[in-house]
């Protein structure tokens, strides 16, 4: 709760700080803000409180996810150094928008009421629409923003429709009450189908937000067109918040009507896994590959949701953490390389292992992690998801599918590794990396490996 207020206040302060002549001060400032938010957020650990007459709950679930998202943002920000160098006049606004969208994300993991969910989603999304189009002169950025905006608001409408149906069936927006209300449903056939309709439409709405197939179409294009720095945010914080909200919704509100949405969710999961992995295989652009990869990871996270048992939350939490750390590092390195090579293709990475071993190593670790290979966090991410899902042995086939597609994943993740270490450098000029950015990369890499060795740090939180 405090974090929401702090983030909002800091966002506004930051806007004012934008008037300062020296843009150099902005980054440290916002980092300090985030660090403070991170710390304050932790104060709420093991101290469950509800706010705004039961609209928002701050429990460990919310704190853990808030922590991860704050930390993700914190570790992402150093990669914005180049904006500062270029003297981008809108930098303060970007930072503020990030802070504001983080407010939305925090609301999404702590909501107790569908209204809060909606508002959280919208705060997050609207900020993202802007950031997607932040490179005003780039047609690609324009296209991304327009597509994201149009499709996003369309699905806002869809989601609202779902909420309305739920409300119509149960007469409440409070998720706990909705969960309780299901006992009384079913006697009246009309109400029942309205409720089911609501659930399904809501599931579809959130699926869109986390770019689950077949509602993923926006994702590759938007991720591709958005300036890389913001893509990183989009594919980590937004996704984490979305999946966390999704699970919270299903667990708190719709657990009793499991049978109604389960087949749909399974279908969406399967499709997401397939589309994400198969789509990524043939990409020539590393960035676009990451976009598809983020779809596929949404699929893996959905598997934990499909499992829908006491291990699901831990699995999602760990997976988000692992995925975020690796993805930020990947996008971070991509951004640095892209700034120099003016290309986000695999070829841009040729010879990076020689010209800049640190970037190459971080990238390798990230790719290993995304590929789910041991010694990295990604392995335990997959491990927890698989173990959650296999508690229901009937879902073995889904695990098998995921396993096969994970192997496909190795292929496209390793293409960049191959480019870095085994292809001759196209441009011998080393990529410029500020020491602070380098430090952040090292932290991310260590984090990825640390979680890969001692997953208990995160997995035993919940």
């Amino acid at each position, binding site marked *: 709760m405090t974090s929401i207020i702090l983030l909002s206040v800091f966002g506004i302060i930051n806007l004012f700080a934008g008037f300062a002549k020296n843009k150099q001060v902005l980054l440290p400032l916002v980092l300090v803000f985030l660090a403070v938010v991170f710390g304050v957020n932790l104060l709420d650990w093991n101290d469950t409180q509800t706010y705004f007459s039961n609209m928002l709950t701050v429990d460990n679930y919310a704190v853990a996810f808030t922590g991860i998202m704050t930390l993700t943002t914190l570790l992402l920000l150093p990669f914005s150094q180049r904006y500062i160098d270029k003297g981008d006049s809108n930098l303060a606004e970007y930072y503020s928008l990030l802070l504001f969208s983080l407010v939305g994300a925090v609301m999404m993991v702590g909501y107790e009421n569908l209204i809060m969910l909606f508002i959280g989603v919208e705060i997050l999304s609207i900020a993202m629409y802007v950031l997607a189009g932040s490179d005003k002169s780039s047609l690609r950025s324009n296209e991304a923003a327009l597509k994201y905006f149009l*499709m996003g608001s*369309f699905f806002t409408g869809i989601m609202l429709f779902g909420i309305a149906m739920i409300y119509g069936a149960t007469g409440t927006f409070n998720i706990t009450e909705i969960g309780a209300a299901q006992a009384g449903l079913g006697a009246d056939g009309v109400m029942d*189908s309205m409720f089911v*309709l609501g659930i399904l439409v809501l599931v579809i709405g959130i699926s*869109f937000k986390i770019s689950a197939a077949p509602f993923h179409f926006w994702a590759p294009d938007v991720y591709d067109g958005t300036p890389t720095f913001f893509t990183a945010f989009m594919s980590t914080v937004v996704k984490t918040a979305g999946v966390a909200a999704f699970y919270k919704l299903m667990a708190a509100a719709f657990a009793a009507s499991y049978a*109604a949405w389960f087949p749909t969710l399974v279908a969406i999961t399967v499709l997401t896994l397939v589309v994400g992995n198969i789509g*990524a295989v*043939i990409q020539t652009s590393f960035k676009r590959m990451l976009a598809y990869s983020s779809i596929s990871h949404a699929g893996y996270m959905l598997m934990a949701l499909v499992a829908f048992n006491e291990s699901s939350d831990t699995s999602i939490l760990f997976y988000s953490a692992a995925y975020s750390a690796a993805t930020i590092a990947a996008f971070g390195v991509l951004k640095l390389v892209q700034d120099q090579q003016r290309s986000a293709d695999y070829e841009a990475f040729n010879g990076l292992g020689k010209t800049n071993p640190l970037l190459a190593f971080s990238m390798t670790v990230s790719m290993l992690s995304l590929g789910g290979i041991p010694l990295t966090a990604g392995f335990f991410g997959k491990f927890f998801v698989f173990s959650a899902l296999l508690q229901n042995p009937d879902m073995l086939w889904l695990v098998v599918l995921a396993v096969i597609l994970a192997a*496909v994943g190795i*292929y496209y993740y390793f293409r960049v590794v191959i480019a870095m270490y085994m292809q001759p450098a196209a441009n011998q000029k080393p990529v410029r990396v500020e020491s602070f950015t380098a430090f952040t990369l090292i932290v991310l890499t260590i984090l990825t490996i640390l979680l890969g060795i001692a997953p208990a740090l995160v997995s035993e939180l919940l």
Partner: protein
Amino acid sequence: MQEIVMPINNQGMALLCLLIPLLPLAGFLINGLGNRSIAKGLVSFIGSGTVLASFLITVYLFIDFRANGSRAYIVDYYDWISVGGMQVGFSFLIDQLTLLMMLMVTGIGFLIHLYSAGYMSHDENFGKFFAFINLFMFSMLLLVMGSNYVMMFVGWEGVGLCSYLLIGFWNKNNSYNNAAKKAFVMNRIGDLGFLLGVFLIFVTFGSVSYPQVFAEAAQYTGGIDSTVMIAITLLLFVGAMGKSAQIPLFTWLPDAMAGPTPVSALIHAATMVTAGIYMVLRSNVLYVLAPTTMEIIAVVGVVTALVAATIGLAQNDIKKVLAYSTVSQLGYMFLALGVMAFSSSIFHVLTHAFFKALLFLGAGSVIHAMSNEQDIRYMGGLRKYLPITFVTFLIGTLAIAGIPPFAGFFSKDELLAHVWEHSKLLWGLGVLTSFMTSFYMFRLVFLTFFGSFRGTEAQKSHLHESPMSMTLPLIVLAILSTVGGFLGIPPVFGENMHVLQNYLAPIYQFASVANPAAVAPMHLDHATEWLLMAVSVVAALVAAGIAYTMYVSKKTVPAPEGERLSPLHNLIYHKYYIDEVYDAIIVRPLMWLSSVFHRVLDVQVVDGIVNGFGKLTMYSGRTLRYVQSGATGFYLMVMVLSIVLILFLNFFIG
């Protein structure tokens, strides 16, 4: 039944036994590692000396054995392989048969070593030669001394390896190398059979050690000719086919003549090739339980003897003739085994070792003198130049032809007598073979030593008798070939004069329990025996006479290469085209299969399937990408349709 095999705890004796194979092994190591850095004199001293020492120790063992009441004993050194019930000890069995074989191997081995010192003296790889031939002695001794089938297999494979190394001794020449490889591979085909036989023995009797296996076999309750016994004996016999060059695995032996001549004498005539006979003899208790196998062995033996003899008739290479003669004689030995004339078989092994080693060494002496010419068409009249060689070679020929009183007469005669008792047909074929043997051997002698010299002037000027180190072994072997036959004097000359048979009697004791009928003594009346003797001697003499007329009186010289021959002659001259047939039905299909497996099955099918999954993924990726068309309207349409589909499926289906 009393236990005749006991372990001994006598350390000194154990050490002596161990020294017998180890001394040649030491020779191998010294000569092998110091190939060129050791002086030739020292090399031959080490090489021959170690074998001589082994021989002397063997003689001592033999005397000691006789002195101690001829009781067989086992010398255990250590557990070699022990896994579960499979206990394979590194241990030796010393009994009558072992000692006999050891005496033969080390004795003849020493003579051939001695001979090699002279014969190989000009070779740059003198040390290597002695190393290999010492290694052979080691392996052969393990083969005969081992106290279980696995130890025998060790020697079995070891001699095969040495044979390979020595056939390909001059390894710059790839046709020699091919011959070596062929020998090894054919041997290995047999080895597989042998090994499977050993496994079956283990499965059947729960042990691979001779005393246990034989004792179990003596009590065997499955009866005579049970499937398992036939299987065991046939599998073992496959091993013998390979090692002892029986049909169909005999073609390597003539090719093996690519090796240096002493090798041919030692390995491919006197010792290694008789390992098969030793094995069958050693396993006599198993074989008497499977008379069916015995029939097969007899038939294989006689066919081999006959086929090889016919081929021998038309060969012009002095060593090839001897090689086919060896195959033929080995066939004889198997024929003897097949009719359960075990002692006759080993008797022939022994005499054959004498005279065939003699003949090969004689041939070596001739080749030495002729500057490596081996074709008898370019020899002739060598009697004058090589008197010792001639005389000894003639003795060898008389022995192999079965002319009394030379060694071959006794062994062959006894053997044929047993065959007669078993089957008249086999006997007839045996005598026919004997006739041919006599013919081609005398043909060899006449073409080589009689008439006038047909070689080049350069060769003629170079003709000389071989040095002492070479002629001495010839003389010794000639003496042995002459008197060796008296080890087995047939009953017609006096009852119980068959020294060898009496000596070996204890090794059949299990067999006599398992199948008493099989090892019952021969019941031929003396008249028949005389008759049989007369027939074979006459046959041999007639053959010799024909050869004399053809090659001495008429001075016929075999047709030169390329001349048209009569179809039959052509067929046997080309060895019935067996090599060509093998090439067509085995080698080439295998090569073809290798290519097909690799290029088609492996690369296209198996790997193709693996790559197919990759390609499928790529293909679906490429196809799927068109859905991601970039058009917002299309995206929205697909998504809305998906929503409709989801709702439809949820509300109207199921």
